[in-house]
């Protein structure tokens, strides 16, 4: 187990290394010059060139990369071109907002998908099942930014019940997190439905029923554990999608997270910030998935990780 974790952590370093090269190159390949974007459109040419030099953009690419990676290894991802403060500080200051949003969205998604999945999974083929499936397809087809705007118009404008934007109180997080959860619900609900249906036809469930246990006890006591495995797998896999979805939702609700920061940084070609965001988010993503894999061993005693594991 220890060796397994160590291996995975080594993989993390390799992933981050690969990501650092990719993001470094992509930023410099796409058109757009950070210096020209910082100055007025009609700024004299030599002023732009001077600024490029100040920002260290006139060095050959491999020199720029080596400087970047050697500083990064010492934990310094460089100063933001625009904010003039360390990019890491900037990203970490925005990360809690995004994590709050994604965790809240996950909570919505888990609760709502469980309701939908259990309703449908225990009654496959019934009218309820079909209604849930129809709702699921509808959710899948709904663009999240549009749904967010509809929520804003209904809850903030018509009913004046929730704030339209920003971060602060509990009310602020409800609409954006609910909107974001739509990214996840369709897959999650469908997985729960299918899995539950299978589980309910397994031998141990038949045994439990034969013992005379009520359907509720069968569901809660015997079907939960195997269901959790698939639930957690999907949660881990969809975490990345959720982060991606957060980028759009943060813009709609003016949620001051990393999605919104990244968008600004990309538009401004603030290379250091985009690099820092990508590295930090990749790290979080890999760690979340490692955690998911480790949790299998906790949930299902049959799972062994590492050497000799199945």
């Amino acid at each position, binding site marked *: 187990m220890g060796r397994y974790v160590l291996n995975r952590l080594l993989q993390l370093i390799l992933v981050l290394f690969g990501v650092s090269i990719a993001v470094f190159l992509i930023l410099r390949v796409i058109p757009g010059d950070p210096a020209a974007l910082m100055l007025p459109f009609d700024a004299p040419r030599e002023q732009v060139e001077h600024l490029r030099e100040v920002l260290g953009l006139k060095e050959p690419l491999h020199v720029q990369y080596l400087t970047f990676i050697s500083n990064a290894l010492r934990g310094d991802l460089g100063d933001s071109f625009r904010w003039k403060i360390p990019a890491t500080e900037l990203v970490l200051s925005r990360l809690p907002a995004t994590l709050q949003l994604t965790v809240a969205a996950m909570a919505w998604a888990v609760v709502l998908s469980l309701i939908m999945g259990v309703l449908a999974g225990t009654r496959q083929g019934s009218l309820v099942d079909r209604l849930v499936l129809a709702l699921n397809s509808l959710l899948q087809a709904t663009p999240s930014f549009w749904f967010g705007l509809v929520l804003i118009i209904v809850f903030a404008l018509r009913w004046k019940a929730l704030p339209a*934007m920003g971060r602060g109180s509990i009310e602020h997080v409800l609409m954006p997190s609910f909107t974001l959860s739509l990214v996840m619900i369709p897959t999650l609900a469908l997985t729960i439905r299918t899995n539950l249906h299978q589980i309910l036809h397994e031998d141990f469930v038949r045994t439990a029923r034969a013992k005379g246990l009520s359907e509720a006890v069968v569901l809660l006591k015997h079907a939960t554990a195997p269901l959790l495995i698939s639930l957690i797998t999907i949660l881990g896999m969809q975490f990345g999608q959720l982060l991606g979805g957060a980028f759009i939702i943060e813009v*709609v609700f003016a949620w001051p997270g990393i999605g919104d920061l990244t968008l600004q940084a990309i538009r401004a070609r603030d290379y250091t910030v985009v690099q820092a965001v990508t590295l930090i988010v990749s790290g979080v993503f890999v760690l979340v998935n490692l955690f998911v894999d480790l949790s299998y061993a906790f949930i299902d005693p049959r799972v062994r990780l590492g050497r000799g594991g199945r």
Partner: protein
Amino acid sequence: MSGRKRKASRLRKITRREFLKGSILGAVGSMVAACMPSAEPTPSPEAAPTPTPRPPAPTPIPTVPKAQEAKFLVGQNFFGDMNPYSNWITASAEVTNHIYDTLVKWDERQENIMPYLAESWEVVDPNTWLFNLKQGVKFHDGTEFTAESVKYSLEEIQVGDYGMAFTSLFTVPMEITVVDQYTARVVTETPYSCLLPNLTIVGMLNPAQTKEEIDVAPIGTGLFKFVSLEGNTIVVEAHEDHWRGMPQLSQITFEYVEDPTTRIVAVRSGQAHIAERIPVDRVKELEEDPASKVIVAPTHETTRWTGRFSGPWGDIKLRQALSHAVDREALVDAFLEGLFPVAAAPCAKSVYGYPPNLTPIPYDTDKAEALLAESTYDGSEIEFVGPAGYHPKNAEIMQAVADMVAPLGINIKANPMEVGAFIEKALSPDFPGLMYASSVSWTGDADLIIVFNYYGGVNVTGYDNPEVNAAFEASRMTMDEDERRSKLQECFRPLWDDYSSVHFYETVQVVAMAQNLENWPTPPTMLLVAEPDTHLS
């Protein structure tokens, strides 16, 4: 199985059960937890130790009602640092204009330059200006505003850091001397008659602050003090000791909100008091809501389409043909609710130096066809690039223009681009096509429009017209204000006759306000800055 192993497996079993229970509880728990406001506020640059001591904190006056806290939603992200000279971003300039005062200001009608931090000034000779400063003006940290501030500020602009946008504002080197505590002398290398208009946008820095300090926690003499910058939110609060008296608003929170619908709903639902960059097609909605009002006001900006004069655009017949081939009125009606006036000159009416005697280019397809026949244009494709979304509806307008002129045989391919990519393309010296550009004067003076866009061939398009150059140079040399103005006006006639660009419309700004927000000015600079009497009723 050894005892140790058995123990371990039992341990794991217990952990597993706990984990199962925990994860079910956790799903519910995390929802509650996630809904909680984070206990720790995210660190802000303001939290960093500020070397300059905070003002001798006069405790907030309790008589100021909490309701005087206004929220301002900007539609453009802040540049990043808080330096008033580092950038041209309107949203950032709006904030720094609350924090910093300038030496001089335009009057409301944009006719005369009025004293502000400078009580009076004197042109000693064409190269020498003497500024007498107002006494008793206090910075937010309690120190006094003196001639040292003028020297520090104007030197910082010129040499402080060549990466700052404002450096290109002053095209003539200046030398600044402190004559006495309240008198500063500015000596320019050559006569520089536009010094005063330029100074209307230069905030006076606190000489006690280094550039690094200004970047994160600026201290000025302005009506409002910087409090914090966190995420997309900047907070300023009333400066009690301002020389014009304490402003009625006790606090202003600036927040960047990208989506216009979100900005509009926030104002209509009472979450914010003022929002800028409202799309023109939302004016009616805001007018009809009793909770909000909407202001449609002129600006110093005109938009135009132009190209490099070394390429196909150098052919005046093509320029004329295209200019007559576009039905500007129809475009404005179709895409901009008819709110934007069609340009009648190369600059907006509100700009100082606007030539009153020019007339709009008429839409005339017969004339366009005839001119096209005389031109060297061979029907090959002309790429038309523009920064998508930067000007209202510009992507749609570009496509409409391409469709409009196609029947005449002008083959335009509209290519709206992401802003960064557009700038790179437009600035590349060998780009032969058309670009969507704007002429804007940040100072409100025609001088900037000429020097950045048309003077001496050093501009982006390479435009070089001896008549324009001569009139412009004369305007810079004269110290007589009426003559300067007429020389600036003279610059525009040859530009217009030369069809230097396809001039399109004058930009109009649309601002949404809560019904109870009073006296927040919407000047043509598009910099919405609260005045002492701005308040919530």
